[in-house]
């Protein structure tokens, strides 16, 4: 689950190994790269997640210095091999797509893709700050 990278200098995201990697938050095996996300802490610890909602919940549960300067990565929903840093990503909540933890959040890399998604699936886009708040209030109480 938790992989220690060998002190990689550039903190590039590691690829998701379908059928091998489990989500660090919900324990599920990661089966769909479209929603898979990753946190690399300042110390270089890598955490992989099966959904954006899991990454955000995990991030909010770990408020410390190592996570404050962590890199957060999401996959571009339309190009599920491409990593996008959370600062550049655009997020959409749609009810046409079902994500592993049921919050139906997806990410894309730019505004033209947002338009493309809205055309095909509908839904509402949201900013990172709004997303943090949304996950905090709507993640199922377990």
């Amino acid at each position, binding site marked *: *689950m938790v992989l220690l990278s060998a002190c990689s200098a550039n903190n590039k995201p590691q690829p998701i190994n379908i*059928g091998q990697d489990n989500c660090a938050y*919900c324990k599920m095996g990661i*089966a769909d*790269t479209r929603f898979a996300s990753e946190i690399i802490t300042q110390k270089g610890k890598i955490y992989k997640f099966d959904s954006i909602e899991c990454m955000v919940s995990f991030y909010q549960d770990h408020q410390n210095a190592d996570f404050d300067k962590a890199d957060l990565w999401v996959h571009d929903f339309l190009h599920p091999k491409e990593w996008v840093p959370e600062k550049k990503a655009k997020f959409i909540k749609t009810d046409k797509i079902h994500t592993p933890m049921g919050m139906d959040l997806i990410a894309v890399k730019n505004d033209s893709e947002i338009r493309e998604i809205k055309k*095909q699936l509908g839904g509402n886009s949201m900013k990172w700050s709004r997303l943090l708040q949304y996950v905090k209030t709507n993640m*199922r109480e377990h």
Partner: protein
Amino acid sequence: MNIPLKKVLPLLIIPMFLTLIVESSEAKNINVSQNGSVTTIEEALKLAHNGDRIIVDKGVYVGNQINVNKQVTIIGRKGAILDGMGKYQIMVVTADSVTIENLTFRNAGISYVNDNAAIKLKEVRDCIIKHNKLINNFFGIYLAKSKYCTISQDSVIGNGREETASGGGIHLWNCDHITITHNYTSKNRDGIYFEFVNHTTITHNVSENNIRYGLHLMYSRHDSYTYNLFKDNHAGGVVMYCKFITVKHNVFQHNWGPSEDGLLLKELNDGVVEDNRFYQNSTAVYSEGSNRVMIDHNNFIRNGWAVKIMSNSTQNDFVNNNFIENAFDVVTSGRVNDNEFNHNYWTAYKGYDLNKDGIGDVPYHPVSLFSYIVNQQSPAMILMHSIFIQVLDVAEKALPVLTPKTLVDHDPLMNRVVVSI
């Protein structure tokens, strides 16, 4: 003879009405054949009325999505194949009381945007999907917001792709009162997947070699799965965020590999795990944040770990189980234990029974110090069976420092519990 007309008239009229009723409700058969008058199922559906039967002759039928919006039965003759060409969803049912039987569905298209299925049931009830063969589809049988349907004797073999391109075999979302029986699933993302599914029975199915899980239950309640075989999956059965789930008479076998489990329970409250056989899994039962689960009369045979229970799992009872030749019987994540282990049979138990009541006279501590260490630092596994470890284990048993003091079987059995599976 003079019979009044008043008396005779009803006798004449009633049979007339009866014949009318019978004629209008008599189901007709519509034959679909590539060299007949009706060549596609879509054409047959246009001609059909509720209650009709569409019989599909041998042949490969290619085309866009078939929308079944009438209450019909669609039956395939031997060799009737519907092909999605790797592009389309094949059949979508939006009418109640539809039966789909004896057809082969193949190549439903992979899509990142739509959950394309071979057979999709949308907001319907009383449908039957029976005796079909599904090969190489993105999703196999997909039920959304449906009730009182039966899925039986279907064979669902996925595309086995180890990436996003593989969907669920039998996939249920927001359903109630479904019966899933005597199916075979293999090479799907999850063999059988439930999300928000209640009052559903899964029985006599075989789920093997799936990419992720044999059976996956999410946010579901009051479901039971019995008499199933889960073999060679990433995990056999996974139950997450569920309540009131019954797991009985199943075999969890050879779900083997790093971090693979027979049965994974995460936040299951109020469940029953009874009369199951766990054979050669890396971990037979993994429990995290699960409460009030009764685990009794199970056989745990030759697993890596029989039970891994995290300390946030509470009030679970492990009673009358057989723990036979597991590398480790029980491991926990901390020193706190609020679960009951009592009246089990452990092959690793070295105690004695002087008063011959069948219960060992000394308690059994199923968590060894070594299993605790390995759980924290997996490379320590290399020290297994060394004398150093044996000495440590004996010392820890006499004076528990790291392992939970309360995790003790006070009445370990001297003989195996009779379990029928």
